[in-house]
Each structure stands twice: as structure tokens, then as C-alpha cells.
């Protein structure tokens, strides 16, 4: 399976997303097409409201476009039903969000365990511990999210994202809720793990500096790609 992976892991063709507000339609994305190769790190940049999160949601199969299509690891996402997309996500995809999105009633360890339990992995506890240690939180296993700082919470979220060895990681403004110093450390950690596991990375950010750490940047303006370049 791993060996036969095509070099292009993600293809988007003519993605358009429209929502109905009152009586008029609002176009959030129009005619977005892109291809992402395995192992590549891609930043999606643009001002707030330009449609970055919407694009990320479509690429990750969290939502379906009004028109156009997404092919993720050979799966035509719009041809699958929600459960089919969920399975693709569970198999290939990891997520990191701006607001961490940890389950407040679960401990740090249990949060990391969650995707493994859902997939039904063997020895989930061992793997989860290893990843929590990897992000430097080995002695915070039994702490609940509200007992952790923002940076610590995002570390737990990163451990949760990588624990399933995803082929592609989607990150939506992962440092948006953190101060600069903490954000920097989080990004270091993210790229480290990304390199170790040769994960494809798609990161949404409005931070040019952050984007410059990726191999490639795609610029969105008002729902259209206006620039797509390799970072040197």
C-alpha cells in the first residue's frame, strides 16, 4: 500500500463553494484547482475571510464542494458518503486546529488515545504514551485540558494528530491562539514530527513568516488562488 502510493496525494479540481444567505448566494471559493505531492509541505495563506478554512475543510473531506472534486489518496471524496469520508479521514488524515479541540472531559492521555480507539488499534495505550512523551508531556498524562496551558494543549493535539501515523496533516492556524514564543516552539515540533514521519502537510495561516517555513505557498484572495509558488 505504502509503496504503491502515487506521487500526487491530493488533487482538487475546480472547487467552488457557495452558500445561500438570505436570498442571495455568496461564493466563498471559486474554481480552485491544485495538486499536492506526497511529503510536500504547503502553506495556504491569505487575509482573514479569504476562504482558507473553507478550502481546508473541502480538501480534508470535512465538507463537500458545491461543484468540483477532491481526490485524496485515490479516493474521490464527493463520490463517498459521509461515513466513507470519515473512514478515509481516520485512515490517512490528521488535524491540528487553532482552538486545539481537545475533549474537555478526557485527560491528555485519553485525548491522544481517542483516534487509536476509534480505529481499533492494538496496544493503543503504549503508542499514546510514546507520543505524549515525544511532545514532552510525559508527566501530564492524567491532566485535563483545563489544567494545561494553551501551548501544552496544542502539544497534546499534535500528539493526537500524529499518533495514527497519518499520511497527510491539515493544520488550521495552529498558532493562532498562542503567543509568538510558544507558537514558534509548536511550529518547530510540528515540522520535526512532519519530517520524521514524512507526512504531507497542508497548513492554513495568515502569517507570512510561518508560510516561509513551508516548501510551497498558495495564496488565496476572495476565494481565488492568486499565487502559487515554491518557497526558496
Amino acid at each position, binding site marked *: 500500500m505504502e509503496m504503491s502510493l502515487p506521487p500526487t496525494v491530493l488533487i482538487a479540481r475546480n472547487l467552488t463553494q457557495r452558500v445561500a444567505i438570505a436570498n442571495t448566494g455568496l461564493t466563498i471559493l471559486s474554481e480552485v484547482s491544485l495538486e499536492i505531492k506526497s511529503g510536500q509541505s504547503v502553506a495556504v495563506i491569505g487575509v482573514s475571510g479569504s476562504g482558507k478554512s473553507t478550502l481546508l475543510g473541502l480538501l480534508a473531506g*470535512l*465538507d463537500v464542494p458545491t461543484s468540483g472534486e477532491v481526490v485524496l489518496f485515490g479516493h474521490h471524496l464527493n463520490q463517498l458518503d459521509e461515513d466513507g469520508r470519515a473512514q478515509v*479521514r481516520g485512515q490517512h488524515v490528521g*488535524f491540528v486546529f487553532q482552538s486545539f*479541540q481537545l*475533549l474537555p*472531559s*478526557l485527560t491528555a492521555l485519553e485525548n491522544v488515545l481517542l483516534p487509536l480507539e476509534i480505529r481499533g488499534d492494538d496496544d493503543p495505550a503504549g503508542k499514546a504514551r510514546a507520543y505524549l512523551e515525544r511532545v514532552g508531556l510525559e508527566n501530564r498524562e492524567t491532566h485535563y485540558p*483545563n489544567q494545561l496551558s494553551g501551548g501544552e494543549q496544542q502539544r497534546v493535539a499534535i500528539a*493526537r494528530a500524529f499518533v495514527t501515523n497519518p499520511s497527510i496533516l491539515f493544520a488550521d492556524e495552529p498558532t493562532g491562539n498562542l503567543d509568538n514564543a510558544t507558537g514558534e516552539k509548536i511550529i518547530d515540533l510540528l515540522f520535526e514530527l512532519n519530517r520524521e514521519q514524512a507526512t504531507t502537510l497542508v497548513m492554513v495561516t495568515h502569517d507570512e513568516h510561518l508560510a516561509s517555513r513551508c516548501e510551497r505557498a498558495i495564496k488565496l484572495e476572495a476565494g481565488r488562488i492568486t499565487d502559487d509558488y515554491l518557497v526558496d
Partner: protein
Amino acid sequence: MKLIRLAGLFARREARSGEFRILAFALVLAVATTTTISLFSDRLGRALLAQSAELIGGDLVLRSSRPPDREWLDFALEFGLQTTQLAEFGTVLMSNDKILLASVKAAGAGYPLRGQPRVADTRYGNDYAVSKRPDKGEVWADRRVIDRLGITLGETISIGVKTFTVTRVLTFEPDRGSNFFNLSPRVLMNHDDLDETKVVQPGSRVRYSYLYAGENVKSFADWLAPQLGPGQKLIDIRSDKGGTSKALNNADRYLRLIALMAVLLASVAIAVTAQGYSERQFDVSAMLRCLGATQKTIMHLYLIQMLLLALLAGVVGCLLGWYVHLVLLSLLEELIPSRLPVAGVKPLLTGFVTGFIILWGMVLPPILKLKQVPPLRVIRRNLLPLTLSAWTVYSVALSALLLLVVLLSREIWLTLLIFSAVGVLILLLAALVYGLLRLRVNISGFRHSLAGRGMATLARRARSNSGQIIAFAVTMMLMLVIAQLRTELLGNWQNQLPEDAPNNFAFNILPQEVEQFEQFLDQRSISREPVYPMVRGRLMAINDRLLKPGGVDPVGNDESINRELNLTWSPTIPDDNRIIDGAWWESQNAQKDVVSVEAELAKRLNIKLGDRLVFNIAGVQRQFSVRSLRTVQWENFSPNFYMILPPGALDGLPVTYITSFRLEEMQRSLLIDLVSQFPSVTVLEVDVIIQQIRTILRQVTSAVELMLVFVLLTGFLVLMAAVQSSLGERLREGALMRALGARRRFIALNNLMEFGMLGLLSGVLAVLGAEMINTYIYGRLFRMDRELVIWIWFALPFAAAIVIAGVGYLVTRKAVTQSPKSILAQYSG
């Protein structure tokens, strides 16, 4: 398997949250209530049957006016039944030179079958139960026989041509039937002596009974019934109900009603909580979807949690219910035979199932929504799952409630009627509340007042608040109904039997003795009822319809026409009788040929106002037309009459007088003086019966109060659930307002006013609803009158406002004391 572990983990983690605790607690309460009442009712029901059996002396009784076929006794053995026979007749007892008219019962081998006679070894000795009949040559006689004949135990009396030794004082016969006004002195003898007395000759008036007991009485009755001839009838334990079983049945009905309300309240609490719980799980569900969980996985995860919860609540609730039912039984200890039948499994199962039904009806619909949460919610927080159609939600909830009613109620249709009334009421309330909240109160002065501000805040959250108002209103409404029922039900019972209720009846007071008799009692400060004249008469016909005793139609079989009725006259209506139709005679010189008839008898015999009743009074036929129908408090131990006539209506007919009076323990010996001074007067002591009824009242009261604790607890749960469900929103809003610079006092006051208005509004609605339900329950279910308690109408809304404002203030205090940042962080996720 892994899913179960995950579900267990979730459930364990959730157990720390307030919502989950309310859910679990409400569920445990509902299960416990159901279990308690089902167990209690199950065992009580069996005990009642046993008691009825005691009252007629067997599980089945054949009554006959001539010697029944001997084979009917022997053949019962084939059915595995135990049998005995009785012969009862009136005869003259002789001792020394005195004679006395008495009623004698000859008991056959095997007596007693059900219940035990009680006897004493001296005239005033303590009595005890025995399981036998008198030996041959011996009789047991009651106190009246002993007093009248002036004998002591060990002396002899003759019945017919045979002489018997009186060996015991008979104080109680189990098979006396419900008619404890059997006036004659009584003697119990051995059936084997009967022939030797030569009293029973062809043509003598004897009541023969065959008594049967055992499992198969029903099939035996089916075999016997077609063979009965005229003057013969079968009585089973359902056809003869004594006063105790009526009271217990009423208690059981009432307890059931309370239990049902407790369960419904618990359902309300659970529904409210489940709603909030589900909404809080939206994020969890979205995250799980995001991590690859399919809809099925998510459903399984929550369903397993629900099942775990139901199992846990089922076990804990059943245990609790078992314990409480034991307490309930011990509270009603003296009413219930000591050897209670073991409880079946069914009541426990009923309780256990309740938890599942409630979860299914109240929790499943909001949980089902979780399946639909779009995963995109992890990015866009405001995305909500498609809501299930209101139709689905309500029909699921409603069907669960119906199931509960069916499980818990004996009178399903009646209860369903009540609950559909409640349902309609709730819909009306919902519409009203919603309308009220949407109504912009535009009186400028009001808008800026505190109350106006509370109202405005209420209106802003019209949807969630109307839910809360309805929950509160329904809760208070049900509690109000129960509380009022309790007060009035118990009050009613107690009023019928005041501390100083008469405990002795005196019959056969001769006209010329009345004054002396009154003096005798009054001089000794013995409290008494008025002395009523009494004439015995048999009802012969209603209009042109002849009443034939022992006939096949139900009217012909009615007790009241198979014996003489007591008629009296009175210028005024007795104190606690009430006219329900027609009118009382106003003046002394009104018509003489009218009669006032007791309402239940009138109903049984189909007697209407204006009907002509023909009586045979001492051989003379007299006609009266029905002037009024009247209710009578039979249990109050005053002389009561089926038929009352105007003064003068019975002039010239043989009359004796009757009264009842109260003797204190110390005054007991006065009876001897009384009996010797008025030898013709018959005194009947009813202390035992009064004691029994008083015990019932006391015990039923405590039982009812115990069950009310459940209702109170569930009511409180609803309050907590409703406040809790809005907690997050309120805290967030409070924190925001403070972040925007609002003063603590302002926010606290705002919350207080909002909750206050909420309480006031729901209190008003509760009073309205309770009034409607009460009218219905009193009119249809218990058929009693009730007094309107007007002050409640005003007190309740204000009390509700204060309590709810208080609880709300306490719970939302955080909004004022905790730092805005920590709240916003916690509740905006």
C-alpha cells in the same frame, strides 16, 4: 468490545459532570419509585385478597336458604379445595330462668378456613386468635349473651333441647361478612351438635353456607354455578369488600398516582437534561467524526453509554425500591397480614424496564441528533445538526410516557384521559408562554423597572426559557395537585373519624325509656349522638316494579331488599348527610308521604326522584314518594339511615330508638350498669373496628408522605436540571457583560430578576393547570367535593418566584464571582 471500553471511558468521564449526575439521579429515582410502588402494590393486592377471604370466611362461599346438596361439599375435595360448612339461625337461649333471642352459628369440621375467630377467657379479658371451633358440647358466646343472661364462663346455656357449657367469650368472627351491624347477640357452636338440639326443623329459617378455600375455587365455581337453585348464591372474594379493603384500595390508588407523577417529573428532568447534554456533545461528536468515527460508531458509543446508565440505574433503583417498599410495608404493618406473599419478579422487572423506557423516550431523540453533527463544526463552531422533526421527538417521548402510564396505572383509560388533559394543557401553556415572551411590553415605566428588565431578559431567550417555564410549571402543577389531594384526602378520612368518635351503639331503646336513657348518658358526661327513632321495614316495590328477594336480576339480589331496612324520621337532615338531588322538607307540616333515600342505594336500585317506594312495615303497606337523594358518611359511627321520612310519617307504627355514644377506657364498666338498668337495650361495641380504621388512617398517612418525598426529590431535580441547562449560556453572557464593564451588582440583579419572573410566570401557570386537573380528579376519580384553597393561587407564584430566583442566583453566582476570562475560556470551548 473496544467500543464498549471507549463508551465506559466516556461514561466514567461524564459522570463528573453535573448534567450526567442529574440524569443518573433522576433515572435512579424513577426506577426506585416504580419498583417501590409495583412491589408494594403487588403484595398489597395479594394481602387484600386474603383479607377479603377472611371477611367471608373462605375464597368462595355458597349461601343457601335450604340445606344444599351434600355432594357440593364432598366434590370440592376433587378440586383440591378445603371445605367447611356453617348453619346460622336465630333461636332462644335459656340459662337459669332467663331467655334471650340470639343468633347462633354452627361451625363444621375444618372451621375456620380463612381468618381466625378471636376469643377471651374472661368477660373483660384480652382476646386472642384461635384456629378451631368449639368442641362438642361447648359454645363460645359474645359479651352481650353473657351480660344479658348474667352468666360467667363455665356455666351452661341451652339451645333447643341440648345444654352447652360456655367456655369462651367470642369477641370476633372472621366470617361475619361486611355487615357488622348484625344486631343479635351471637353464639358459636359445633356443627356436630346441631341435630341434637332439634332446633332446625323443616321450614325453620336457617342460612346454610358451604365455605371453600384453595387454588382452584374458580374452576369449582364454574362447575357449581349452573347447578344453583332459587335462594342459593355464590359469593367470591371480589363480591364482598369490607371497609378496610376499600380504604387500602384508595390508598393504593393514591400511592400509584403519586408514583406516576414522580416518574413523570423524573422524565421531565431527564428530558431537560438530555437536551443540554446532547448539545454539549455536539463538539465531541464533531471531533470524533473528524478523527474518522462513522455515524454508526458514534451511535454505538452513545447507545452503549445509555445502556450502561440504564443498567446501573436499574440495579441501584431496584435495590433502593426494594428497600423503600419494605419501609412502606413496615409503615403499613398492622394493616397487612404478617405472612405476606413473596413478591414476584414482575414488579422488579417493571422498575428495571422503566429506566430503559425513559431513556428511550427522553434521551434517545436528542442523542440521535449527535449522529448528524457535521464534522465541519470543528472549523465552523456555529454549524448545527439537522434537527429531527418535532413530530418524531414528541411522538417518541409521548409513546414512552404512554408506556409508563400503562405500566404503572391500574385504571389505564382514566389515567390516559388525565394525561391527555395534561398534554393539552402543556401545549396551551407552551403557546401562552411563547406568546407572552414575544409580547413586547411597551409600557415605558415598566420597561425600565427591575421587573421589566427581568421580562426583557426572559424574552430575549424566549425559546429556551419557555421550555424552562413549562418544566417548572408542570412540576409545580403536579406537586400542587398531589399536595392538595393529600391534605384533602387525609383530612376527609380523618374528619370522618374524629378522636371522640362514638364507639358504642345502643339499639332497641324503648320509646318510654328514651328520656331516661339520655339522662343516664348525660349525667355521666358521656358524649353521644342524637337519639333517632327507628322503624324496620322491607322495601317491596319501586313504582309498579315488585322486588322479589333472591331473584335473578341484580336488584333482586341486593342486600338491602333481602332484609329489613332501618327507617327513621327527622325534621332536619343529619349533620354530615348531604343532599345531592331534590330538596329536604322545610316545615313541620309539609307532606308526610315523602322519603329521602341514600344515594348509593338509589343508584343500585335505580331509584329516581319522584319514584314511589312501597314498604312493608310490621305487616302494614306504606307508600312514599322520593323527595331527595342524600350521601351518607357510613364510616363515622353515628346512626345512619338509608331512608329518612318527615316527622309524623310513621306515627302509629312500632318504634324503637337508636343512638351511639363514646365510652372512654375507664368508663367501660358503666356498660354493666347500663345493661342492667335498660335490659331491653342492645349495646354493640365497635372499638375494635374504630381502632382498625384509625390504624389504617395513620399508616396510610405515613405511606403517602414517604412517597411524597420521591415527588419532592424529582421536583427538585427538575429545578436543578432546568437551571443547569441554561448555566453555560448564562455564565458566558454574564462574563461578557462584565468584560464589557457591567457591574457585578447589575448582573446579579439581572439574573435574579430573570429567574424571579420565570418563577412567577410558571407559578401562575401551575396554579391554572392544577386547578383544571383537580377539578377533573375530584369529579371523576375520587368523586369527592373539595374546598377551594384560594390563598394558594396567590402564594404559589410568589413562593415560586422567590425559590427559583434563590436557586438560580446560587447556581449562577459564578457568573459574578469567577473571572470573566476563565468562564469565557471554559464555556466557549
